[in-house]
């Protein structure tokens, strides 16, 4: 069991980023509705444990290509709350001075692979990063995250197949929230679990509870160890639920409110709190302290974003080429 090696500091870190992701998301949704943000936000509420529980395992030689609802990866890989928030506000202090959104930002120096607005479009790129890792002779891995909707795209097939054929150190992490925008999983695929698709490529497929941060950690740690040893890629499926509409503009009127509300009974933060308190790993006052610190980081970031300038117009046609 990999989780057995976690120390109190690790638990604090997990809780810190879970809480920070949730709090930041709530604030983003609130401020967006007040017309303060430019970036079309896709809430990750209810899905935080996946990015946090797997992202915490990534080291400096590892890469991550986060998907829309995977904000935790950015924070854990060194993207600051300030730059991310400034990006949401469309400010010059955001990623690439306002040329890229925060949710697709990339910085190879920090191991963050630029995403794509085309669902599934980042998967072949992540395979190329995996090839680069292998060519360098590094022990690193690349984790690419995507939703269940992406698995219907041809890029999922091409990327999974090539990564398996070349035994590349790629972790395919599917956040299965059982929704592809307005389509339910029954309309997306005729199988019950995404992970069984791994069989078709000759790689392991693992399904775990995406609302249990320790289950995410455990499954990811095993896949990373396998990849670092040259065992090749793994498809990890983490089950979860989408609490909000697809994007912040989506009123989510097509879903049964009672069902959506019931998802909140399986909250990844509450689930983790219960474990921490029941096992005495952290006390209530520790949680309060962590939450306060996380809130401060987020609030400071919002202030920074609000105070930042808009990009100067004269940069618009710069750096199309190097």
């Amino acid at each position: 069991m990999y989780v057995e090696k976690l120390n109190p500091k690790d638990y604090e870190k997990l809780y810190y980023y879970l809480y920070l992701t949730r709090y930041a998301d709530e604030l983003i949704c609130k401020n967006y509705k007040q017309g303060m943000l430019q970036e079309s936000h896709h809430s990750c509420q209810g899905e935080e444990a996946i990015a946090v529980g797997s992202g915490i395992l990534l080291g400096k030689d590892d890469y991550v290509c986060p998907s829309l609802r995977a904000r935790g990866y950015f924070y854990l890989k060194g993207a600051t709350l300030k730059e991310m928030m400034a990006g949401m506000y469309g400010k010059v202090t955001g990623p690439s001075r306002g040329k890229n959104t925060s949710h697709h930002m990339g910085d190879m120096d920090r191991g963050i692979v630029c995403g794509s607005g085309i669902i599934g479009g980042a998967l072949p790129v992540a395979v190329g990063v995996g090839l680069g890792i292998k060519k360098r002779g590094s022990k690193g891995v690349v984790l690419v995250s995507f939703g269940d909707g992406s698995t219907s795209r041809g890029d999922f097939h091409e990327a999974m197949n090539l990564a398996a054929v070349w035994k590349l150190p790629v972790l395919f992490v599917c956040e299965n929230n059982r929704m592809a925008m307005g389509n339910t999983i029954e309309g997306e695929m005729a199988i019950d679990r995404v992970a069984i698709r791994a069989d078709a490529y000759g790689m392991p497929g693992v399904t775990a509870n995406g609302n249990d941060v320790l289950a995410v950690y455990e499954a990811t740690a095993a896949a990373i160890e396998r990849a670092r040893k040259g065992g090749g890629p793994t498809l990890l499926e983490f089950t979860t639920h989408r609490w909000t509409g697809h994007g912040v503009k989506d009123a989510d009127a097509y879903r049964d409110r009672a069902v959506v509300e019931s998802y909140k009974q399986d909250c990844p933060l509450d689930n983790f709190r219960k474990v921490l308190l029941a096992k005495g790993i952290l006390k209530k006052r520790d949680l309060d302290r962590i939450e306060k610190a996380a809130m401060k980081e987020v609030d400071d970031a919002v202030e920074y974003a609000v105070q930042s300038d808009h990009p100067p117009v004269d940069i618009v046609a710069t750096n199309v080429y190097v």
Partner: protein
Amino acid sequence: MTILSVRQAIREAMREELLRDDKVFLIGESLGPYGGSFKLTEGLLAEFGPEKIMDTPLSESAIVGCSVGAAMMGFRPIAELMFADFVTIGMDQLVNNAAKMIYLHDGALPLPLVLRMPEGGGATMGPHHSQCVESWILNIPGLKIVLPSNAHDAKGLLKSAVRDDNPVVFIEHKLLYNEKGEVPEGEYTVPIGKAKVVREGKDISIISYSYMVKKSLEAADILAKEGIDAEVVDVRTLRPLDVETLAESVRKTEKAVIVHEAPVTGGAGGEIAAVLQEAAFDYLDAPIGRVGALETPVPYSYTLEQAYLPNTQKIVDKVKQLVTR
């Protein structure tokens, strides 16, 4: 000087760049033991091994996307598509990842990748293996587009493309692969973004690229016998376009016809005509003419395909129409 076919010239360019820079590698379908669909990579596997000559599954999207990722990691992939027509499958990776990656990093990340592909008709290969794709790709800032017309340029431009830190789409014409030409011995490059006057003349500028340069030169020979002195300009690079060299020629001849193998509508000729009238409007003595393929899919049968394609006679006819109006 030595005489090489375009195929040999391209192979030599790849070989020399593989030897020069350890970051360079080849990726594509059946490049290794098979030697590439048009035998461009023949012999390279034996010399460089499978880590440098990488055979992929039939996965054009993965070929392009994987090349983008490897380039982001500091490698310099030369990717090959079996046929340019297959770029449709890799188009998302080309348009939404390769072309945008530098801008999305505000210039902080180079993206040195070359995407090679053979295009064009004349080989009775049917509608899915004969198309000219350059104008599909032309409307995408962030890419460079190179189309060599001869062995000298093919080698020199490809070496420049491999050393370029931007994504370069390198479009070859399959009918050029066996065309021989003089190539310098030893190291040289041809700069991307420079057109070339390949035949001087004073009566009209025939502006062309790729295989149609050969047809334009043939047309110029025929026209010369009829007293029309045509200048032929090889565009060589569609993006960035060397407007000044083209405009200078037109300012001299005061007439222009643009010749490419792709259908006329929406083809690169429209773009070239637009920039020429901006740069040389006061010099123009006739409307700018265009010669291209018919507005149909590329037909398979030889007689139909030949009727579809632009050719020497069609260029001659168009030039006469413009010169004698």
